[in-house]
């Protein structure tokens, strides 16, 4: 079923990670993406991996949900690491026709798969511990400076939260429509590519129709409650940076420093 995907889900909890300011979490996440792609040797990679592991443990969310979130991308991991494996430069260790294996290739394959896995784990960590409302709130606050160049910050954030809110609804709807079309003998699991694409039409059209209907409904409901955009709106829950966020920033800074030191001290392998 479509619903079994745990990637991007929110698990309510009271762990220290849950209670961090969502803005802090987003900034840390951005910093993390940068670090993970700036690791050039195994020591640096180990530092970031350790950092990820500690973070995941601190969320107090069952490991199996993280494993589940990886299932979605396992194919991409295998594909890209295979690609890297055979495109390395340097002296081949093993060769068969045009296929050659080099130490550089092995390193690159390892690095790319660890990086992707860490990236997904970290983003799961962010979405597992941050509710969609918090997330969009934080994005809105972080993008506030863009108002200077007349970027519609509030509107974009509202669109994002509406979109997120409808993800589960639309998934459920997809399940229902699929069941109804299967009951009328729609064949979705066999046939060639063309017939499979054609088999999507009976699902996509009703889904679009209902998405538009829901959009109209929500627009009406918002107008009924006098929503007129961001100007002058206050919040029920305002977010505040606290001592724990400062500590989190400090830890992140330490990890960045650690990675930089590792990169300088030891030779790059990729």
């Amino acid at each position: 079923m479509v619903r079994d995907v745990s990637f991007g889900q929110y698990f309510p909890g009271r762990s220290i990670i849950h209670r961090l300011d969502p803005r802090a979490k987003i900034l840390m996440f951005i910093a993390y993406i940068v670090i993970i792609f700036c690791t050039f040797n195994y020591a640096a990679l180990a530092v970031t991996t350790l950092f990820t592991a500690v973070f995941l443990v601190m969320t107090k969310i069952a490991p199996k949900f993280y494993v589940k979130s990886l299932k979605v991308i396992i194919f991409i991991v295998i594909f890209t690491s295979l690609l890297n494996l055979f495109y390395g430069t340097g002296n081949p260790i093993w060769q068969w026709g045009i296929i050659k294996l080099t130490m550089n290739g092995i390193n690159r394959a390892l690095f790319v798969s660890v990086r992707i896995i860490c990236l997904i784990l970290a983003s799961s960590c962010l979405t597992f511990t941050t509710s969609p409302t918090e997330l969009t709130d934080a994005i809105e606050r972080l993008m506030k400076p863009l108002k200077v160049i007349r970027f519609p910050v509030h509107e974009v954030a509202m669109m994002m939260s509406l979109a997120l809110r409808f993800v589960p609804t639309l998934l459920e709807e997809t399940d229902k429509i699929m069941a109804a079309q299967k009951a009328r003998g729609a064949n979705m699991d066999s046939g060639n590519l063309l017939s499979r694409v054609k088999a999507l039409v009976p699902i996509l059209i009703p889904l679009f129709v209902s998405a538009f209907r829901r959009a109209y409904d929500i627009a009406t409901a918002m107008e009924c409650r006098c929503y007129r955009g961001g100007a002058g709106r206050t919040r029920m829950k305002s977010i505040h940076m606290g001592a724990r966020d400062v500590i989190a920033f400090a830890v992140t800074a330490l990890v960045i420093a650690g990675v930089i030191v590792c990169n300088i001290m030891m030779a790059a392998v990729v």
Partner: protein
Amino acid sequence: MSCILELKNLGFTYGKGTPFEKRAVNNVNLKINKGEFIGIIGHTGSGKSTLVQMLNGLIRPTDGQVFLDGKDIWEEPKQIRNVRFRVGMVFQYPEYQLFEETVYKDIAFGAINKGLTGDELDRAVRSAAKFAGVKENHLEKSPFDLSGGEKRRAAIAGVIAMEPDVLVLDEPTAGLDPMGREILLSQIVNYHKTRGNTVILVSHTMEDIARVADRIIVMNKSELVTFDDTKKVFAKGDMLSKIGLQVPQITNIMQDLKQRGFDVPDGVLTVDEAVAVLAPLMKREGATW
């Protein structure tokens, strides 16, 4: 009478092996005969919808078997589509499944998947449209231009057009106005009478079920509570109210009269029946209007 559907120790668990595990249907055993009109009643979340979705193989049971004409439907999983043509399923709010350019094409979708062509297809579509009450001049319109009730009729026609041996309807009258309900229900009854096929109707409206069903399946908390003749089921008003269901209003009144010492029979299900019983009684008692 020959048996068309048989359920043996049928059970289903959602999300097996996860923390969200939930038993939706537990150990259901029953036999449904050819040509019967079966009603299914039960509270929201009692497992009715899961049960009916197992009848045509949309959900694969986690325990037990479903036999269609004596053959286990999951014996050959690749042939499950053929089961879906034989057990037609109309979901709740079926109007959201419409997608074709014209109503005619949409009704034909299932029949084409079944393999009908040419005159046979045309005949199946037109007779299905007639049974479901889709107007002739609506057939060439876009389904999205129809009203809610008309859309629903078109969607029901789309399932009837597959000419299934068993027609399952999950709350077909939900959200319709009283007039619309009445018409749709009488069309289903008419379909059952004319085709002589088995019909299974899931409903929350006891009055509707009481009027049309030969036998009733009562579900509560994933279990089958009773499966018996309509009159016998509704005679057990206490048992039904214990699980949060009601008997039709008129049945309640008649039971009350009986308790007060009047000579009235059990299991009066419709107002017409009640009038037939009460009119002579009132004459005898010398009551005046």
